């Protein structure tokens, strides 16, 4: 069956190549253009097509995000709350671990209805001592602590799952702090039996530099904005590792985390979607995290994300032609590919092409028009994402966050510098994954600024 599909694809590919070649020679004969000119013409047509596609994508996401907000239910019953197990894999997190656990112990959720399971994945720092301090203290929330040799995040999470008892599994990163009501908001959706997973809202805490503000804008406009639109169809394609909620039976049905994929969260989400469950987004289930404060750390993170997503996409390639799945699922899968590889590649190609035209022929306005139209699109969606995020906010203790006054200035920098940088690295990561070059998990430096969360909360 698979070979048949491969040969059919190959057959169509050959026909398309022959067709293009024939069209090229036809144009050359009729219009009397040289090959470099035809190449430039076809590249311009291609970029224009992609731009239209992008415009369409922005419009659709805007419409469905708006519909998501209209449908969003603010009120819910706090009776019959399910038992939750919060899983935290830990590896060298001594700087933030105390704050992470303290925030979990103070959640607005019945204390007897949740437990915290920490698995130390062979830390070499004082992470274990930090956990022992909490174990010695008197408390009303159950904490289970396990240690293992370093085997990776996926295996640590799977070990934590094996030791858990809750009906609902909440997975969080050990450098993420949950707000008081995040558990309540995340878990409420599981009243619907068809909900398999809920994605939380990841926000950046250390927004005290322009560089981290740009990342906050990306989270707001790029990641959470898209999740809102996909949530309208119940087809969110990534439940972030930083804050995600899962139904226990669903995890048992689709299998746990896969250690062979660097974006284990994306792989798990795609498997849940394939099994036919709803995956939704809850903007009020907030987890604060620290963003990388230097370019090298940021690019390392994005490189890992891109390769991880490509690995997950390859592993779940049956979604390309998954007959029993709905159209919205296939659309969600294609959107994942488009956002992670297609669009970054096209953006980089456009920049190189227009720069080439400007330097060689002096056609500078093309590059400007390309940049300006994309910046306008970014600005409109950033305004929407900003106002909708502000509406969903139910706490005020965030550090220095993006203000509306800053937004136009940030959007200018965002498109001109930040996204081009990120897209270039995404393209390199994409090429390396195709070439199957080796990679290793590289840690991101943590400053410990998130420790300020507890002080703000008390204030």
């Amino acid at each position, binding site marked *: 069956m698979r070979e048949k599909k491969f040969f059919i694809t190959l057959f169509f590919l050959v026909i398309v190549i022959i067709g293009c070649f024939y069209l090229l020679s036809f144009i050359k004969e009729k219009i009397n253009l040289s090959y470099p000119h035809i190449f430039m013409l076809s590249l311009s047509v291609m970029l224009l097509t992609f731009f239209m596609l992008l415009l369409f994508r922005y419009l659709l996401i805007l419409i469905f995000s708006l519909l998501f907000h209209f449908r969003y239910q603010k009120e819910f019953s706090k009776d019959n709350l399910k038992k939750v197990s919060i899983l935290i894999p830990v590896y060298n997190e001594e700087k933030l671990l105390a704050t992470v656990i303290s925030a979990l112990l103070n959640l607005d959720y019945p204390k007897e209805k949740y437990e915290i399971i920490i698995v130390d994945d062979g830390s070499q720092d004082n992470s274990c001592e930090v956990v022992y301090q909490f174990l010695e203290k008197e408390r009303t929330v159950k904490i289970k602590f396990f240690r293992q040799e370093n085997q990776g995040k996926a295996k640590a999470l799977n070990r934590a799952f094996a030791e858990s008892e809750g009906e609902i599994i909440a997975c969080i990163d050990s450098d993420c702090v949950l707000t008081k009501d995040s558990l309540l908001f995340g878990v409420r959706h599981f009243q619907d039996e068809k909900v398999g997973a809920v994605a939380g809202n990841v926000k950046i805490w250390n927004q005290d530099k322009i560089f981290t503000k740009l990342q906050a804008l990306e989270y707001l406009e790029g990641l959470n904005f898209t999740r809102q639109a996909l949530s309208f169809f119940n087809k969110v394609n990534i439940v972030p590792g930083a804050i995600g909620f899962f139904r226990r039976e669903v995890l048992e049905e689709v299998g746990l985390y896969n250690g062979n994929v660097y974006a284990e969260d994306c792989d798990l989400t795609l498997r849940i979607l394939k099994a036919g469950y709803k995956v939704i987004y809850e903007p009020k289930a907030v987890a604060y995290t620290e963003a990388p404060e230097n370019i090298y750390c940021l690019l390392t993170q994005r490189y890992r994300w891109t390769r991880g997503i490509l690995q997950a996409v390859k592993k779940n390639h049956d979604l390309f032609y998954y007959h029993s799945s709905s159209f919205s699922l296939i659309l969600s899968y294609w959107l994942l590919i488009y956002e992670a590889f297609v669009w970054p590649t096209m953006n980089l190609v456009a920049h190189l092409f227009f*720069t080439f035209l400007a330097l060689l022929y002096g056609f500078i*306005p093309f590059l400007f028009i390309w940049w300006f139209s994309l910046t306008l699109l970014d600005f409109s969606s950033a305004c929407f994402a900003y106002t909708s995020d502000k509406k969903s906010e139910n706490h005020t203790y965030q550090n220095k966050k993006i203000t509306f006054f800053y937004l136009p200035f940030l959007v200018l920098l965002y498109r001109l510098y930040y996204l*081009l940088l990120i897209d270039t690295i995404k393209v390199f990561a994409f090429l390396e994954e195709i070439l199957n070059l080796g*990679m290793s998990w590289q840690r991101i430096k943590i400053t410990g600024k998130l420790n300020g969360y507890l002080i703000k909360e008390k204030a």
Partner: protein
Amino acid sequence: MSEVITILSAIVLGVTLITLIFSLIIYILFRLRANKKEVINKEVKKESEEEIFIRYQPKEGEED
């Protein structure tokens, strides 16, 4: 108006060029560092595997 557009276009072109070159340099640095780390990781893995082997190696006269 056209002069303003030309100046703005030149700024965009300048920043684009700098960013492209900068990201290329960053990528090369990243690749070089990643290669170094991979070698170290491989060595560490090899060592730990040996350790496990020694720990679980059955003693003489003991059943496997």
